[in-house]
């Protein structure tokens, strides 16, 4: 946007805005909040809902503010009788085909359509329903689509295509039969969908939600036969407060631990412990590939939407993917083997719940190979029916709902500490929550292992921030290597196409599925903007500086688990419990 200013009149008030500004922003300067349902910052506007209409002097018909730029001398009215009537009719037409399910809807209280109906003072249904019910898509492990609640705003379609480069869904049909559909109107599970959940964070209604597992978790918590362990992903401490009404960027680590104890979790552990472990395993894998001539560039594997993506779209590049399981899955495997054995708890009676910023994590828990602990016990002669390493993955939003249901006031809780030993972590593990963080954490460790000396500057600034693809250069073993970090899958495509073409200059690549990394994940609070992503990222880096130890290899609990249980990184037990394999996914 240029520095030139444009002067126009909105509702009789003169406002001056930078050239190129849209009318929605310009109107804010005049104190007018133009209602919108389809527009969303950062996405190409579909201009489909019709709520943002305004009257522009000299124009024959009303204009949609979301796609109109401010022009010098323009005279705009946002509340003329004509505007108010058209706006209301647009909303009433949307509501005509909308079920009255608010009382039992996941979005009750967080729904833009509901809020708009309230704001516009809708008290009756003037238009009859014309659409037939379409039913729900519950085919995937992570995402539920309910097209009957869809208002065809197009946000999900554009996020999926533009931000994620997946294009699993599109509008299908026309007229009254228009709907959002995957190929052949089949369930998302048979489409290219990677279950990243980005569509669910932008949907204005309850048409796309995570598969809600809170009831099952309540049941486990209330079952006397179960010992329930919980692990929390790094990004949760930077977003749970926001999900419960605190300011975006609130850092609530200790309060979150306290709330989880109050909910009845028997042990409160931290996925950050296994994030540190991931660095040990993945760092060792990188060193081994560098010295023994393995496939390079090596690419990180902690983001399950990303793993689904490469398995579906670039299966020939799978050898580039690190064989490390994600920290969530490493945690589950160790909780039900190492921890169960130490604590003398029957692994079959353990329930592992993870709190994740992510919907794809739900699918990850149910990959058929993710029963390593059960296999391990079987190898020791144990019998009994099989179980997954992780039983439930809840999103930040689901945990927030449980905390509200229990009547826990997060903001006023005193801070508590994670339990030992699977709750000990470092600053390096915290930054897994932001784009560039896994790479930075890995470099902090790999550098010191390879060079045998202390890193002068811990913070790799070029790898931080919301730029789509970031890169840095590091000297390792006398050789300069280039590394890159990309977030959101359309950016991942750029790096993958380079690898496929044989022109990738990188040795090590980090990819996270979602914009901003986990802080902007598909299970995070609704309607993230870059401003909110930055605030959440800020909380992550604050936490990194707050934790006394900031390098994974210096975590004493990590040293201990290698000494007492695992042996060494990439050792036999590591392979059994902490590493995995990938396979092509067809759709």
């Amino acid at each position: 946007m240029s520095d030139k200013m444009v002067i126009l009149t909105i509702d009789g008030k003169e406002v001056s805005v930078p050239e190129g500004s849209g009318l929605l922003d310009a109107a804010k300067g005049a104190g007018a909040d133009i209602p919108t349902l389809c527009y969303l910052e950062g996405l190409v506007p579909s201009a489909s809902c019709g709520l943002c209409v305004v009257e522009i002097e000299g124009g024959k018909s009303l204009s949609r503010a979301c796609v109109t730029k401010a022009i010098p001398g323009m005279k705009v009215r946002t509340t003329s009788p004509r505007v108010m009537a058209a706006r209301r009719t647009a909303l009433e037409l949307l509501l005509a085909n909308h079920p009255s399910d608010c009382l039992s809807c996941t979005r009750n209280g967080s729904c833009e359509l509901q809020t708009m109906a309230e704001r516009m003072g809708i008290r009756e249904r003037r238009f009859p329903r014309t659409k037939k019910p379409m039913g729900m898509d519950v085919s995937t492990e992570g995402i539920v689509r309910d097209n009957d609640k869809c208002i065809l705003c197009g946000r999900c379609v554009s996020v999926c295509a533009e931000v994620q480069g997946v294009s699993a869904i599109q509008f299908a049909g026309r007229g009254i039969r228009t709907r959002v559909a995957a190929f052949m109107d089949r369930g998302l599970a048979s489409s290219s969908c990677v279950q990243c959940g980005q569509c669910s964070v932008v949907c204005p209604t309850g048409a796309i939600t995570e598969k809600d597992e809170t009831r099952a978790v309540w049941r486990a918590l209330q079952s006397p036969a179960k010992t329930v362990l919980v692990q929390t992903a790094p990004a949760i401490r930077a977003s749970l407060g926001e999900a419960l009404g605190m300011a975006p960027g609130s850092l609530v680590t200790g309060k979150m631990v306290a709330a989880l104890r109050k909910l009845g979790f028997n042990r409160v552990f931290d996925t950050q412990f296994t994030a540190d472990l991931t660095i040990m395993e993945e760092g060792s894998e990188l060193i081994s590939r560098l010295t023994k001539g393995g496939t390079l560039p090596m690419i990180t594997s902690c983001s399950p939407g990303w793993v689904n993506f490469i398995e579906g779209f670039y299966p020939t590049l799978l050898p580039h993917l690190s064989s490390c399981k994600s920290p969530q899955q490493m945690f589950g495997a160790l909780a039900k083997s190492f921890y169960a054995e130490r604590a003398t708890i029957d692994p079959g009676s353990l329930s592992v719940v993870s709190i994740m910023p992510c919907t794809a994590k739900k699918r990850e828990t149910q990959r058929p190979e993710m029963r390593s602990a059960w296999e391990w016990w079987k190898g020791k002669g144990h019998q009994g029916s099989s179980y997954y390493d992780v039983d439930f993955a809840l999103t930040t939003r689901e945990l927030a709902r449980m905390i509200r249901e229990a009547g826990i006031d997060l903001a006023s809780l005193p801070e508590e500490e994670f339990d030992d030993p699977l709750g000990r972590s470092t600053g390096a593990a915290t930054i897994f929550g932001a784009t560039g963080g896994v790479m930075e954490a890995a470099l902090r460790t790999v550098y010191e292992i390879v060079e045998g000396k202390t890193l002068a500057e811990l913070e790799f600034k070029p790898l931080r921030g919301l730029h789509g693809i970031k890169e840095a250069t590091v000297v390792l073993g006398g050789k300069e290597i280039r590394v890159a970090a990309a977030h959101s899958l359309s950016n991942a495509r750029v790096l993958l196409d380079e690898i496929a073409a044989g022109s990738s200059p990188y040795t090590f690549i980090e990819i996270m599925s979602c914009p901003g990394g986990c802080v902007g994940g598909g299970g995070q609070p609704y309607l993230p903007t870059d401003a909110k992503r930055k605030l959440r990222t800020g909380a992550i880096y604050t936490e990194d500086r707050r934790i006394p130890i900031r390098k994974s290899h210096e975590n004493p609990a990590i040293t201990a688990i290698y000494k007492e249980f695992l042996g060494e990184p990439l050792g036999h037990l590591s392979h059994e419990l902490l590493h995995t394999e990938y396979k092509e996914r067809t759709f």
Partner: protein
Amino acid sequence: MSSTAIMKNRVPSLDEIIEARKGKAGALLGILEDAQGLEEHRYLSEDTLRRIALGTGTPLSTVYSVATFYSFFNLAPQGKHSIVVCRGTACHTRGSLELLETALARLGIDGFREDECNSITSLDAFASVRTVACFGQCALAPVVEVDGTLHSRVTVGKLASLISKLGKGGDK
């Protein structure tokens, strides 16, 4: 491969159609149209849609989106004969619902839900009945197209006789 070479000698294959058109403006629409023309039962099978997506580098959902947007495209095999009833406002007020019902009854087709889809084929694949939103021939309402020929101011009697003529000449 040069597109003229294909066009002159023989009916091009789907792969040739894709190859000749891909990358050009409006390619997808043209390819879908030609692909439907290749198919004996005038429809786009799932396999055809997949090949087009792959061949043009278009996401499957986008190909499906285009194929379901235009009522010209069929996603199910079509009968030997085609009857298209216009359901635009003008035709509707002049009795096109009755015409639609007549066509379905005469062809022995049950269970057509106009609000759910726009075409149905008789079980013996003898004929397909399709509705369109508007033919753009409102002055001649109601209009019905039978095997590509547009008939105007159609009455129930006229439609019945048009349909019974289809059965003549050993067609069925």
